């Protein structure tokens, strides 16, 4: 039976009034559960059929907080329903069954259930279901931020045309990294393995991996997407269905958030030129960009019920540049958001997909200019200009960062550096933002191997952040701290490298504010595996030796004008606290 399908937003104090949708083909249980939930002061809607439940959920996206469903149902397997709900609505789902076999419970968890209850169910078990709603909300924010950072990195990387690093399987997944971060305060060092409460394998979603993911999603068609399909297409042996499912959820969330943001801010940001530097502020830039991207995305995606994306009817008013981009993407196969950055040297359609929001098409971030004057701006970097202005100063990205000598790290750094190499806050780079004149020599690909570089870069550099994915990749066991500290070094190296690469064109719209966090320790921006330790606490960045060409032995002498970031435009640090997580490497 379906009672009031639509519930109005809760007015009572949480968790009272929690809107629960119960799905069970057994009428007796349905009555019992309804009664139990009502006794918990929750608002209950019951459904005897899975398809009715989906219908209700789709009709009213925001009408429910949590779904409780039986595993065995006649019209649809409970696990299937679970997947649908997770993908489309991203609500917490609790499974129920009279069968408590481990394999079944495991299956439930793999499909994304946040809990698995055994019948007969006690009322006290139902009383606490609100925790799942709460937990999800908390993690949602973090995940989005991480994703944004990741996307940015990806964009940068793509722009830079860096080689693929392969995937990292780090110890932590987003959630755990974030948690860790919170717990620890600064990123951490703690051994990667311990923070997650679950023992599941943690995957670090590197830019590369994410790119594959997005490609797969686009190929399948956003509305037909499913973890299994994506997994198959991605062809990553070590990746599990569960990994993909949870990443997909975050992706959706991210997209929907972009959409929301778009509608919120955008005010005339001009994208044609440095979007990043937009007056709208860092966020605004992003938004505008996002919008465009979303536009594109919208178009392309046919997202079911439009749930995710946007419905961004907005701003198509973006300047032609954007439009150009948009159209480009429109031309892309699959509705995915393939956004091409106009300037990017190597436009990769898949690249922009996710991060479209971040990147202002073609514009700004052009890392291409890494040469001494970095024209690009890092929108995402909140590097305070003042700091950056310091001219060749030792980069110490962060006060606390100890320096690490990352012998092999450097190389990685670049690789992943999608674009924002600059973010490396340390002014390294990037972009022409007006960041001050800090010049950091951008390292080119050679940086990669530059262990020497790292060491040469003055140990004073406190790199707090950015651990590029490469780091992560290569040093999976990287201790976050180490990365952080070395980040500085790396950064310079990377930044230089990056600049060298074509990343310039990708504007790094790092939604992540790696810079913002520079204050603290290095935080890994890229939680997702891209470990860009973006904690660009740019404020503290000083680029001492970085600026010194001599430092970079192998690298071409680019000067990173990291300081040039137009930090203002960078996103507001408060917006993206996430990058902080320490390296995401597990």
């Amino acid at each position, binding site marked *: 039976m379906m009672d009031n399908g639509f519930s109005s937003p809760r007015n009572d104090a949480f968790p009272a009034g929690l809107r629960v949708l119960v799905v069970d083909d057994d009428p007796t*249980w349905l009555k*019992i559960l309804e009664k*139990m939930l009502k006794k918990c002061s929750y608002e209950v809607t019951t459904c005897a059929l899975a398809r009715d439940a989906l219908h209700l959920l789709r009709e009213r996206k925001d009408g429910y907080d949590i779904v409780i469903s039986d595993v065995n149902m006649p019209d649809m397997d409970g696990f299937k329903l679970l997947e649908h709900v997770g993908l489309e609505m991203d609500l917490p789902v609790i499974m129920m069954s*009279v069968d408590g076999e481990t394999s079944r419970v495991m299956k439930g968890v793999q499909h994304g259930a946040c809990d698995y209850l055994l019948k007969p169910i006690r009322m006290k078990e139902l009383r606490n279901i609100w925790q799942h709603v709460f937990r999800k909300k908390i993690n949602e924010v973090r995940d989005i931020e991480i994703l944004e950072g990741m996307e940015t990195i990806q964009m940068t990387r793509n722009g830079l045309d860096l080689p693929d690093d392969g995937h990292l399987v780090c110890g932590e997944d987003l959630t755990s990294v974030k948690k860790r971060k919170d717990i620890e305060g600064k990123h951490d060092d703690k051994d990667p393995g311990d923070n997650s409460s679950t023992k599941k394998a943690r995957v670090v979603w590197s830019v590369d991996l994410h790119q594959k993911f997005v490609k797969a999603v686009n190929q399948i068609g956003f509305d037909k997407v499913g973890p299994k399909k994506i997994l198959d297409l991605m062809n990553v042996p070590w990746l599990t269905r569960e990994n993909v499912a949870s990443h997909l959820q975050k992706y959706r969330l991210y997209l929907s958030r972009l959409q929301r943001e778009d509608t919120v801010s955008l005010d005339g940001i001009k994208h044609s030129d440095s979007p990043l530097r937009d007056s709208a502020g860092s966020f605004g830039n992003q938004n505008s960009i996002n919008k465009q991207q979303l536009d594109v995305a919208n178009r392309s995606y046919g997202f079911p019920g439009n749930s995710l994306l946007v419905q961004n009817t907005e701003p198509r008013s973006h300047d032609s540049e954007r439009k150009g981009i948009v159209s480009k993407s429109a031309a892309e196969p699959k509705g995915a958001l393939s956004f091409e950055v106009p300037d990017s040297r190597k436009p990769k359609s898949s690249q922009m997909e996710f991060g479209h929001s971040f990147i202002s098409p073609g514009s700004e971030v052009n890392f291409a200019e890494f040469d001494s004057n970095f024209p690009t701006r890092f929108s995402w970097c909140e590097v305070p200009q003042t700091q950056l202005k310091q001219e060749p100063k030792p980069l110490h990205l962060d006060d606390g960062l100890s320096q690490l000598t990352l012998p092999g790290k450097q190389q990685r750094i670049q690789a992943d550096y999608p674009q924002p190499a600059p973010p490396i806050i340390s002014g390294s780079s990037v972009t022409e933002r007006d960041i001050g004149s800090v010049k950091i020599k951008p390292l080119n690909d050679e940086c990669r191997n530059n262990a020497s570089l790292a060491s040469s870069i003055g140990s004073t550099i406190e790199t707090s952040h950015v651990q590029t994915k490469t780091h992560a990749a290569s040093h999976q066991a990287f201790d976050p701290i180490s990365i952080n500290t070395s980040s500085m070094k790396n950064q310079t190296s990377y930044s230089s490298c990056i600049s060298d690469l074509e990343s310039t064109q990708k504007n790094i719209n790092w939604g992540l504010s790696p810079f913002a966090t520079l204050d603290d320790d290095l935080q890994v921006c890229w939680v997702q595996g891209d470990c860009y330790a973006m904690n660009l606490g740019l404020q503290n960045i000083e680029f001492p030796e970085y600026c010194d060409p001599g430092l970079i032995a192998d690298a071409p002498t680019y000067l990173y004008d990291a300081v040039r970031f137009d930090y203002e435009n960078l996103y507001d640090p408060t917006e993206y606290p996430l990058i902080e997580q320490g390296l995401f490497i597990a």
Partner: protein
Amino acid sequence: MDRRHLRQQVTYVRKSLFDQGYLDDQFMQLEDLQDDANPNFVEEIVASFYSDSARLIQNIEQALVSRPVDFGKLDDCMHQFKGSSSSIGAKKVNMECSQFREYCCAGNIEGCIRTFQQIKQEHATLRKKLENFFQLARQAGQAETA
């Protein structure tokens, strides 16, 4: 019967249902849910169960007689039935259901058939006992409110 006597009887009958293993803790959960908003909640739930279980029993019977035997289907049907009977705390019925599923997994159709007879019997017995109990409770309640 006077009120006190009736209530004593109700208490006694109820206790014996638990002691003899006909009902388990779940039944008490149902009793806890009963309140002013749903004063006959337990009885309603039991009625709902018996009404729905008729259909489930029929499904099982069909699966039992069809040849070749589809143990998978049989297991599914029984799973459903078991889930349902757990809703009212039908302990003996549930135990027989578990037994049934064991035979089913072993592919023992004879065992399944035999067990199913047991299930039906327990199912019917419990029904009578509960009906009796509810009637008594009603009488006692009426006597009280009289």
